[in-house]
């Protein structure tokens, strides 16, 4: 029983150290494995891919730095998809904190495309191809107001331009001109879009969410209220795989690079849970014998 005693009394800091090791090593020696794409991710990919040319896509950035490792890769992959397909894109946020993250993602992905562009037609141009609407408080008001007029809710964009002067906004008046909204969030906003924009105005909604909230959101996928869903880093890696495989867009796959670390960390945690349970049952049996 000596081994059992050692395992039962193992210092938590040793577990942290083991966990750190199995997470760090695959990051230092990365290898991107082929990722198996699951139906919720494929559905969202197809929903975005099938947006007709006359309709637009709204991406709602609603996450903060503490959930960015999971949600940033989703945003990058979806932006690459939208820009590659030249989908009319509106970007907004229901909260103020995500604005910087949204701007960072837009700047980086636009730069990726524009650095490879030869002509103005190939380039991604602000106001023509996408508009960053910014933020209008409180959250429910813009969701309801955009059903009537988007430019009335967002009179100026994130950069201070009058939205009704932007060429793209002449083509997009309200939800009738939007085919899909994707809410990337670490909290409840995807549900708000379903409750206030979908139930009332029929807007299709997709979601990118953190893994911790997955079990809360799956019912909305099953009922068809979500047109597709990305869950955590795994969902982001699957979307990266789709974008690279189907569109041949080569870019850094931050989520895919992290999958090995995630897998090994899960294995370590499973092993410790199994050891803990074996120890518990052996001790309980011994106590009963005594």
């Amino acid at each position, binding site marked *: 029983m000596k081994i059992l005693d050692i395992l039962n009394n193992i210092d938590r800091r040793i577990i942290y150290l083991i966990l750190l090791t199995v997470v*760090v090593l695959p990051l230092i020696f990365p290898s991107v494995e082929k990722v198996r794409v699951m139906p919720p991710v494929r559905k969202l990919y197809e929903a975005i891919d099938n947006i007709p040319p006359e309709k637009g896509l709204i991406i709602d950035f609603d996450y903060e730095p*503490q959930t960015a*490792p999971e949600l940033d890769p989703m945003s990058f992959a979806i932006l690459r998809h939208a820009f590659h397909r030249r989908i009319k894109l509106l970007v907004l946020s229901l909260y103020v904190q995500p604005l910087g993250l949204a701007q960072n993602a837009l700047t980086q992905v636009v730069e990726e495309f524009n650095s490879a562009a030869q002509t103005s037609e190939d380039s991604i141009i602000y106001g023509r191809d996408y508009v960053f609407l910014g933020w209008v408080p409180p959250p*429910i008001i813009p969701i309801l107001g955009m059903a009537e007029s988007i430019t009335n809710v967002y009179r100026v964009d994130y950069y201070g331009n009058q939205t009704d002067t932007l060429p793209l906004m002449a083509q997009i008046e309200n939800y009738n001109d939007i085919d899909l909204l994707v809410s990337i969030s670490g909290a409840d906003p995807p549900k708000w879009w379903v409750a206030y924009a979908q*139930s009332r105005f029929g807007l299709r909604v997709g979601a990118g969410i953190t893994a911790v909230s997955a079990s809360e959101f799956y019912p909305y996928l099953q009922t068809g209220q979500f047109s597709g869903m990305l869950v955590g880093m795994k969902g982001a890696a699957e979307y990266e795989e789709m974008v690279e495989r189907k569109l041949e867009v080569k870019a850094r796959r931050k989520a895919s690079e992290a999958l090995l670390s995630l897998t090994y960390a899960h294995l370590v945690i499973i092993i410790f849970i199994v050891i803990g349970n074996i120890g518990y049952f052996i001790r309980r049996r011994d106590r009963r014998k005594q």
Partner: protein
Amino acid sequence: MNISGNPWIWVSALMSLAIFSFLYRDNPFYRFAEHVFVGVANGWAVTFYWHNVLAPSLFDPLFRQGQLYYIIPFAAGMLYFTRFIPRVSWLVRIPIGLYMGYYVGVSIPATIQAYIIKQVQGTILSAQNFQAWNAGNAGVVWSIILFIGVICTVSYFFFSREHKGVLGLSARVGIIFVMIGFGAAFGYTVMARISLLIGRLQFLLGPWLGIIE
């Protein structure tokens, strides 16, 4: 290895390490980082909300542009501060009542439609729901499991009768579904937390230490 020369990356990295140091034990570095975070977050929020909400949406229209009807939301907002004056603290009920009245009116129909009616429809054993699983013929099986799970779980939370007989059996099955749900939620939580650790390590090993790209 290409260590960053950017002082802000150093600040960010050192603050992260200070927070991680709590894993060893509580210490002054952790407490320093925690207090700095709370202070910076509050300072940033006050400044941001002043410049982006209060000034452009209320104070500028009212005091600079002379749009006097803004006095109504201004007065309603000021009533929140009556909480600090015991004799007139009851006035705070006015803005709370306005706020609650609006949101309850807006949210009740939407909530019932999206969170209750649609979810109940999702548990009905219909051909449309079978296909929603994207699992071919197995969709029927999954729908039946979902149906049983919902009925039994709801019955577990039915406390008006003692859990005996049929109700006892369904409640026992219900608690199994609840436990499976907790297990799934815990598994996803582990995945989420490890993902956040990976994100921070990608920053420390990348932009700070330059070990990875």
